[in-house]
């Protein structure tokens, strides 16, 4: 890692001068292309959402995000996402721990399985859970069209975030401090709380932030299993979808703008935590 800052520092100047002299490619062209593409694909469309959300003035925006149905959907989304993030913080860390510190046959297969929710299309994730925990599932548990179904779907799609954030940190953790604490008579729970947890905290927070952000915007895995009942199991993304379908794009844009604002805060928090994690 040591030569990294030096090489990136010189990198800023040398190729730039070279390419400008030759007049081919070059950072200016690359920068132009990159920014133009990002603007066309991402920034203009998102700007259109923000502009449309204020189409009818601030009053109309406020009415759209405080209608009873919108408040119910946004509240459910936030509560469920917080719950899912909390479960992930505990279970994700636990799974990472087992994958790093424990040895058992088939561990590598289990390790590979963790990424399955990222590889599986979200609509299939919904279908998968419905097959087991739906009305005709073989286990006799039917969560279809309940809030539990929303939680289940979100737990499925957010599983890898905390595990994959915590795992590398746990692998790189020096064992000396734990062994010292152990030889001084500390209980395992004390060692975990005082030595391991502080080291894992930045990674856990980063993973939890990503899981929360994903949960707030999730759509595909929820749409089949939740039944989308207004005031009951309708989350914000499903509400927005319904508003688009019925032609109420201004209302949809207002709720979307609020969700984008929440995502933005989460993204900022993650980059802040990540930077603090690197600094440690």
């Amino acid at each position, binding site marked *: 890692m040591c030569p990294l800052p030096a090489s990136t520092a010189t990198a800023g100047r040398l*190729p730039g001068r070279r390419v400008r002299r030759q007049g081919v490619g070059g950072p200016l062209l*690359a920068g132009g292309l990159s920014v133009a593409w990002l603007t066309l694909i991402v920034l203009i469309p998102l700007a259109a959402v923000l502009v449309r959300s204020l189409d009818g003035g601030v009053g109309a925006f406020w009415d759209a995000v405080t209608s009873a149905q919108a408040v119910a959907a946004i509240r459910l989304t936030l509560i469920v996402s917080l719950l899912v993030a909390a479960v992930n913080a505990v279970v994700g860390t636990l799974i990472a721990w087992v994958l790093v510190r424990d040895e058992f046959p088939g561990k590598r297969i289990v390790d590979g399985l963790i990424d399955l929710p990222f590889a599986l299309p979200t609509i299939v994730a919904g279908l998968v859970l419905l097959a087991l925990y739906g009305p005709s599932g073989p286990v006799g548990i039917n969560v279809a069209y309940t809030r539990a179904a929303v939680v289940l779907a979100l737990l499925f799609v957010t599983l890898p975030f905390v595990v994959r954030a915590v795992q590398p940190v746990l692998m790189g953790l020096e064992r000396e401090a734990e062994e010292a604490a152990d030889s001084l008579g500390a209980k395992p729970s004390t060692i975990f709380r005082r030595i391991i947890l502080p080291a894992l905290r930045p990674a856990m927070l980063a993973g939890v932030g990503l899981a929360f952000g994903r949960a707030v915007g999730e759509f595909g895995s929820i749409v089949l299993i939740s039944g989308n009942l207004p005031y009951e199991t309708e989350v914000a993304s499903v509400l927005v979808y319904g508003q688009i379908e019925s032609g109420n794009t201004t209302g949809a844009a207002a709720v979307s703008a609020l969700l984008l604002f929440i995502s933005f805060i989460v993204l900022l928090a993650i980059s802040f935590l990540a930077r603090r994690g690197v600094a440690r």
Partner: protein
Amino acid sequence: MSRLALRAVALSYLAALLVVPVAMVFHRAFEKGIGPAWDAVTTPPAQHAFFLTITIALIAVPLNAAFGVITAWLLARHDFRGKRVLDVLIDVPFAVSPVIVGLALILVWGRDGWFESTEVIFSTPGMVLATIFISLPFVVREVLPVLEEEGNEQEQAASTLGARGWQVFWRITLPTIRWGLTYGVILSTARAIGEFGAVAVVSGKIQGRTETLTLYVEDRFQSLDLTGAYAAGVVLALLGVTVLALMTLLQRRHGRI
């Protein structure tokens, strides 16, 4: 004792949430034998959905790969004002709900939109734009760390010895980032094939015309054709599992993680 308990908790959680449900979909799809499942995924609308999905991925992924390599090179090798902003903006598509992506595209390209066009929304170009949006960050995020780790000594040496800009790129930079680029392309492809929400909003879900494989799964499910839904779901799951296996294999061979 506590080690065993932790292991048991972790494995049961994974079994209940991942393994058993996924196995169940395979069971459901083939409950009535291979025949009905095969028939369900070879109907004309299913085939159309399959080829449309592949077509969209074949357009979106190369464009994102080009953008990804250029942007990663820019971020790794140059300092400029607004670099940090660009770095953060790259990740925006990961933080935006797919439904909002669809809405955003309708507001730009749809009726009364900023760049109103009859060719984009409820048609393939709109679905391609949605797919590009949601899979935009993958290649940058896989290539950038490789470029940063490797440094640019080799590139400098080549250019000192008289190599031109493009020669340096083809002979030095591209071979250096090839595995990062491969991971990025694989992840983008998986995401492009599996996208549902954004494509659902902009496609209009016209069977045999704008229905991708994920939309076809929902369509079959809503039409109560469960064998069709589960069979098409299995096709998508197999694509996903293949991607996963490919990634794991490559990463083990090339010593990452």
